[in-house]
């Protein structure tokens, strides 16, 4: 499945400034893994030492949080938009 992955400002340092990238994968987990293999510097931001997706990164397919779908096993279809939303804390 070819999907569009939207990259937030906070992670664009690791994608050569790209705001969105095309990725392939049958599930969200597969698509994100394939994306991380193209931009390896982003891996430690997305996954902890044990390879688990970090708790401060939420992933949405369309408007829905994958936590409320099937997590990283959420199936994707062609043309889906997957958004990475990391926590930001700025306010001052």
């Amino acid at each position, binding site marked *: 499945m070819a999907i569009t992955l939207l990259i937030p400002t*906070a992670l664009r340092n690791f994608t050569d400034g790209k705001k969105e990238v095309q990725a392939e994968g049958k599930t969200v987990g597969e698509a994100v893994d394939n994306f991380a293999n193209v931009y390896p510097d982003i891996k430690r931001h997305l996954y902890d030492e044990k390879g688990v997706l970090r708790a401060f990164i939420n992933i949405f397919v369309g408007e829905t949080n994958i*936590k409320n779908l099937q997590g990283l096993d959420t199936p994707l279809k062609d043309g889906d938009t997957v958004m990475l939303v990391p926590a930001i*804390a700025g306010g001052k």
Partner: protein
Amino acid sequence: MSGIISDDRVTDLSKEEILRYGRHLILPEINIEGQKKLKAAKVLIVGVGGLGSPVALYLAAAGIGTLGLVDPDFVEESNLQRQIIHSSKDIDRPKTSSAKDKIQDLNPFVNVVTYNSTINSSNALDIAKGYDLIIDGTDNFQTRYLVNDVCVLLGIPNVYGSIFQFEGQASVFYAKEGPCYRCLLPAPPPPGLVPSCAQGGVLGVLPGIIGSIQAVEAIKLITGAGTPLIGKLLLFEALEMKFSRLRIEKDPNCPICGNHPTITKLIDYEEFCGLKTKEKPVDKISPLELKKLLDAGKKVQIIDIREPHEQAIFKFPQAKYIPFGQLLRRKNELDEKLDAIFICKIGQKSVFAIRLLQNAGYKGKLFNLDNGVNGWAEVDPSAPLY
């Protein structure tokens, strides 16, 4: 239309108030009943900075009866690019005092209560008690979790906003009716992984947009007008001028608002955010020591990990440029036999760069320049503070 203010708390408006708030009174969604609720409302604003500035100004103008302001900081020149409640003449004054003056100039009907101190687990419930909602305008994860937990424990809404570079988020976390901050973010990022605005920058107008959204949400909660951002996360991106609204749900396993809460009182937020873990400190070098080394012609490698556009502000003498994001990929460009000195803007991200290399098995000696380029400005008159 009901809102979070009970009818028994409202009092009549004076003639002067009717004149001042006339444009609200003729909106059917607010009308005189809503305006009376705004007058009865008590709102606590935590952080009177980028977000807190527009929130405080708009809520004061809107006629909120009591505004509490919490901020331990003093106004600095570099705040004025975005913290519009403060002025050049306020530099070095407590932010709470500066903000109080502006609010009282704007609307003498508002009662302003100031707390010129850091909010923490030992004082937060005392400060927040009696307020109807809290505006989260803080700039760090530990205070955001603290504000969330205070709101859940007191049963009041947390009107959330956060910003970074050109991007902002807003939501209303109200555990009685939807998810809380912990439902969305069960754990904070490890220290250093997410840069702050001081490190990454922020468009000055951005907090104006997100803070204004927080002010709208507060007014909606108080008056009962419209549908608040409960269970929704609003994302804003200024460069593409794009808003997205995402759905977020309550986590039944949330440790504070779920079915079986394990957090029943405030905790140690510094510890929760990993700020107390004892890591071996990295070796450091002071700007003066580095200057002496360079003046003496000693051979060292200086690695500047700032982004290219930051190097354009000041080119560090003799530095090799490897932006933080490329460090692991390019670690073979370093010579393990030579001392390496790491430079960033304020000397914090460079610590993480050193740890990153150490964890990746780098064997050479690594030093952190104390206070980064801003520290270097003390010994090199050509270097700017920024």
